[in-house]
């Protein structure tokens, strides 16, 4: 479709020609898998990024026209780095919105460093990273796991069973959880990992039944997570000790995008995130909202300085509060992590009902400000026999 020049609005930041705005074309990379075991999450992110691109392109007052350069790694961790390299080699894009798993993010970082590129990462992750070529737009542990545990321990108890898919998200989340459980005076009753995509959960269910935890921390992803929730619902039907009211499954990455795959099996369980979709909702999930906000913030800085590199972005982060569809957002210039709301939601009938909400929680990716006494109150006294 030919691009027609439009009358130039005041302060739109676009190039002007005879009083008409010429939107500046900027290519940006989109690196989300269109198939595979975590496709629902990936699709949600992609929808958010593409919606933001469409909205910015349709906004006559915005100086940029964003052109997506899309690649599909098909949920294969080894393809992210090569496809990211391909984006940099075959286009002028230096910004990429993409990656779902931490595995793929870590694979992509060397390519970003080499090309001077930047990844806008719209998923929750396990923390303990602050690369200046990555902007972390979803929650890190002080914005998901720590507040979720602080909510759960006083209500259900401190003894946890830890589950994860067998890669860095599960390993690191469960490592932090082990420390938190110890600080809360509880015990880790089990820690088990499944290969990504594995759906045989019978042994896990047997172990949960045998150990009777106070809660289950679910760091399984995709189809493994759906299979576990389905089998756990059957267990709860047999023994009310495993109903969501008595022993909830708690997650830091479960959103509305996956509720259709989970169905009734999720009801009553808990998740935490920076956004849960109200009804009616602007966005279907926090992944979508966060990917949308990523493109908004990127375009905001690039509309003022189209050549901005990591140094200019860092300066912009230090000086600017961004108005996004997630609400006003600050990005910490030291760590490039977003300040976000922390919302705990309980799965209801196809949506999350908000259980608690804290606004503007500053990121602390290395948990360097974590204080067990503030998180769990006075240390619990234990009976010493």
């Amino acid at each position, binding site marked *: 479709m030919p691009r027609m020049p439009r009358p130039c609005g005041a302060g739109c930041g676009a190039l002007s020609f005879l009083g008409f705005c010429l939107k500046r074309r900027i290519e940006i990379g989109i690196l989300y898998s269109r198939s595979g075991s975590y496709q629902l999450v990936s699709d949600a992110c992609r929808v958010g990024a593409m919606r933001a691109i469409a909205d910015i392109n349709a906004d006559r007052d915005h100086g940029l026209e964003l052109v997506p350069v899309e690649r599909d790694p098909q949920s294969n961790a080894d393809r992210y780095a090569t496809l990211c390299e391909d984006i940099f080699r075959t286009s002028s894009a230096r910004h990429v919105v993409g990656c779902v798993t931490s595995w793929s993010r870590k694979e992509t970082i060397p390519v970003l460093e080499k090309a001077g590129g930047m990844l806008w990462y719209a998923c929750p992750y396990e923390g303990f990273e602050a*690369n200046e070529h990555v902007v972390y737009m979803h929650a890190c542990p002080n914005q998901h796991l720590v507040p979720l545990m602080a909510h759960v321990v006083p209500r259900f108890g401190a003894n946890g069973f830890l589950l994860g898919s067998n890669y860095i998200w599960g390993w690191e989340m469960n490592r932090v959880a082990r420390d938190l459980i110890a600080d809360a005076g509880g015990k880790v009753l089990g820690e088990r990992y499944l290969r990504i995509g594995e759906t045989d959960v019978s042994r896990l269910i047997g172990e949960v039944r045998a150990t009777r935890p106070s809660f289950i921390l679910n760091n399984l992803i995709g189809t493994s997570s759906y299979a576990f929730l389905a089998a756990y619902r059957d267990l709860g039907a047999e023994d009310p000790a495993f109903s969501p009211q008595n022993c909830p499954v708690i997650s830091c990455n479960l959103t509305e995008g996956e509720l259709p795959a989970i169905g009734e099996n999720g009801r009553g369980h808990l998740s935490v995130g920076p956004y849960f979709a109200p009804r009616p909702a602007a966005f279907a999930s926090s992944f979508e909202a966060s990917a949308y906000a990523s493109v908004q913030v990127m375009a905001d800085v690039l509309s003022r300085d189209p050549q901005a590199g990591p140094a200019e972005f860092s300066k912009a982060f230090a000086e600017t509060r961004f108005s996004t569809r997630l609400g006003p957002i600050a990005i910490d210039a030291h760590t490039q992590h977003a300040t976000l709301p922390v919302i705990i939601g309980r799965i209801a009938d196809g949506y999350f009902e908000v259980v608690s909400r804290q606004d503007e929680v500053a990121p602390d990716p290395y948990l*360097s400000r974590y204080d067990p006494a503030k998180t769990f109150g006075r240390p619990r006294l234990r009976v010493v026999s």
Partner: protein
Amino acid sequence: MTRIPRIPNLGGAKAFVLHRPHPTVQAITRQLSAIGLVTVDCWPELLPEVLAADFVFFDADLGFDEQFPWKPGEAPMPLVALIGSEAPGRIEWALSHKADAQLLKPVGNAGVYSALLIARQSFEARKHLAGEIAALRQRVAERQTIVRAVAALSKGTDDGRAYAQLRSLAMSWQISVEDAARRIVAMTSQDVADDDTTSEEGGSDQSHRA
């Protein structure tokens, strides 16, 4: 089950970076501040406050002994060597300071966190080992005391039974065998001294009597 020691929280820890002003210092400072540490840059000398630092990063390329307020190898905190040139002499010098971890220059976007954790762990392990070796050396040095204590307790009869008695005394006093031996030797010397005094007095008595 032995629990793996947890990853320490480094929030609020203080790191000194001994390096001339350079992009390397900025890269390290950026990472340290993201991890939650407070950074102090110094060159060419370390400030007196360095003695209270939790970590010291030092330049292995241009560094020299006089920069440090301690003898080579005796730093009271973990050290991280910043190595640019891999000249053997410079590595040898960095080794003489017993660096607990290293970072290769140019420093990029990562590496500082693992260097901190590795330096801290190996420093603690080294300190623990040094303490253990010092304690063992002290015990070895007490071998003669143990022989003397056993001799004193056996009074020329059964050495095996005397050693068992020494151990049982150590247990009932709740001290080490070496400390118990030292106590017995001291008591025996005291007895001997008392006997000597008595015998001297006795001698003089006898002389009086004579």
